[in-house]
């Protein structure tokens, strides 16, 4: 069980002026599964390589349980990194690939083959030990890469885009496998991804990195309900940003005067709320009621996306297809915005 802390971790590549990673500080608790989320080129993989010792930071520190490990060689850190494209050694069998770490540690043949067998069972590929990596599907290669990492019993496991090369149905299977193993073995695990959905479904906590800087480090729900700024909200699919001003309990804007939840920020700023939290229909008891005109309607199968015009503002809403089946473009619709779904981003 290892607690990982990054202290002002910075990387400026040779010949570049802009840092690829700018003073990233993060605490990842022992046994936690954390995601580094950001668009490609934002410094995620750079961070992983610095934790694994494959890249030297320009400044800052990496600590395990409060102790700096920067001077430790990669093979002594107790960190294993699984790369995005798996990188199984093509000239070795699956079993030899999995046993590689033990061979490097000079573990005996008998012991190695026993533990390789256990690992093959663990990742549910019991009969594939003699195959070559090229004979495996992408999902199977991913599991072999995972088994090859887990066999050395690392303190910290790093996964680079663990689900992004997989088909939709394999993603759920792999997600369950990774989460299950991580919970069972209690390994502190950090993975990077550019896909917010991947981060949300897999991680306990998510660190959003934009332009080399940490935006927000929190549980997944916080990014939807309490984003720190507009860029963060937009990264998670937020589309509604209404300018106005708040006095801490009410927000004045083109939408009218709206009730805010307790603890809302005050001052000039933007009001944001998720499209899926816009309530459709006339409910007399609801607060923050208003009338909107339907500007656009797009049926998407399991949901219907709406664009609604209210007092010159265009807002996005997502509704149950049945609820809005009777409405068509130009119709007036009664909607409400429950105070608990509103969030003020102060300027």
């Amino acid at each position, binding site marked *: 069980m290892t607690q990982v802390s990054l202290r002002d971790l910075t990387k400026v590549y*040779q010949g570049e002026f802009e840092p690829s990673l700018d003073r990233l500080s993060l605490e990842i608790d022992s046994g936690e599964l954390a995601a580094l989320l950001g668009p490609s080129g934002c410094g995620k993989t750079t961070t992983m*390589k610095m934790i694994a*010792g494959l890249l030297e930071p320009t400044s800052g520190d990496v600590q395990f349980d409060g102790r700096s490990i920067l001077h430790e060689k*990669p*093979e002594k850190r107790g960190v294993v*990194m699984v790369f995005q494209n798996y990188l199984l*050694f093509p*000239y070795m069998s699956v079993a030899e690939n999995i046993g590689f770490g033990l061979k490097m540690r000079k573990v005996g043949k008998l012991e190695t083959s026993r533990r390789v067998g256990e690992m093959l069972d663990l990742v549910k590929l019991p009969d594939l030990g003699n195959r070559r990596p090229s004979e495996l599907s992408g999902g199977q290669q991913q599991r072999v890469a995972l088994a090859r990492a887990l066999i*050395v019993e690392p303190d910290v496991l790093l996964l680079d885009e663990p689900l992004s090369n997989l088909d939709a149905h394999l993603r759920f299977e792999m997600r369950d496998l990774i989460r299950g193993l991580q919970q069972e073995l209690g390994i502190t695990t950090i993975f990077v991804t550019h896909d917010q959905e991947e981060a949300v479904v897999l991680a306990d906590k998510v660190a959003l990195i934009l332009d080399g800087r940490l935006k927000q480090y929190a549980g997944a729900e916080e990014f939807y309900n309490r984003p720190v700024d507009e860029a963060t909200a937009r990264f998670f699919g937020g589309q509604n940003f209404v300018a106005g001003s708040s006095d801490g309990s009410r927000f004045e804007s083109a939408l009218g005067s709206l009730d805010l939840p307790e603890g809302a920020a005050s001052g000039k700023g933007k009001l944001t709320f998720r499209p899926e939290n816009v309530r459709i229909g006339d409910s007399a008891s609801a607060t923050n009621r208003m009338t909107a005109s339907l500007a656009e309607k797009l049926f998407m199968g399991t949901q219907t996306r709406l664009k609604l015009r209210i007092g010159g503002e265009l807002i996005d809403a997502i509704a149950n297809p049945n609820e809005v089946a009777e409405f068509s473009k130009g119709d007036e619709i009664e909607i409400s915005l429950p105070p608990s779904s509103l969030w003020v981003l102060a300027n």
Partner: protein
Amino acid sequence: MSDRVKIFLLLLPALSFIVLLFFGGLAIGLLRSFNYMPLIGLLEPNLEAYASIFTSSEFLRSFLLTFHIAFTSTVISSVLAIGAALLLRRQFLGRAVVNFLFQLNLTVPHLVGAIGILYLFSQSGTFARLAAEFGMIARPRDFPALVFDPYAIGIILQYVWKEIPFIGVIVLANMQSLGEDYESVARSLGATRWQAFRYVLLPLIFPGVLSASVIVFAFTFGAYEIPAILGANYPAALPVLAYRKYTDVDLAARPEAMAMAIVIALLSAIMIYVYVRYTRRRIRS
């Protein structure tokens, strides 16, 4: 005209050169090695020339010497070329200049290099004079025999000098296309720097190293000019011996010369066959 015919016609000029000059020459050589020379009335093919060279101690000594030259040059240049490629793939200041210098002698002909070796390393050469000047040896001719010597050190020096960049460029390209991620994986799984090289990088670049070194071996085994300039009189390298037999006033020595040339060609063919088989098996797996 079908595509197949078109391709055949386009390839014809190049193919006829290869077939006529290469296989034609080889066929004539083969016939002569079997003592078949209608011009001087030899019409009964036999294996006398082969029997004669395989029982001659001169041929066997030459064969061993040539094998020693080819094998030693190939191994030394391969090892040094891998080392050079490992250094050159890193980013460092002045890398472009070093890279240019490294590849510079690819363009220098073998012959010019051999003259250089002669001037520098012979017992009347620059290093011998310098060593005498600084009192390391009494007279220049006390300098150790590195040229015209029985161990063919001068020849091997010349080949190593010339072949390091050749193998190095191939290996470097190979390493650069592989990238460093495989070694990173190995390091992260607990391999030391050396283990990552030994168990991961080396097996990955091995096919490239092998293909380059097979070419070097076949070339150094069959090349004439360097052993002719830098080699001892006796034993002489096989191509030199073959040429001497060929230019012998005794026409009867010619079949022996051809038999030696055929032995050289056969050995090269075997090397290529082994190489192709080996790489095919690797690629399939």
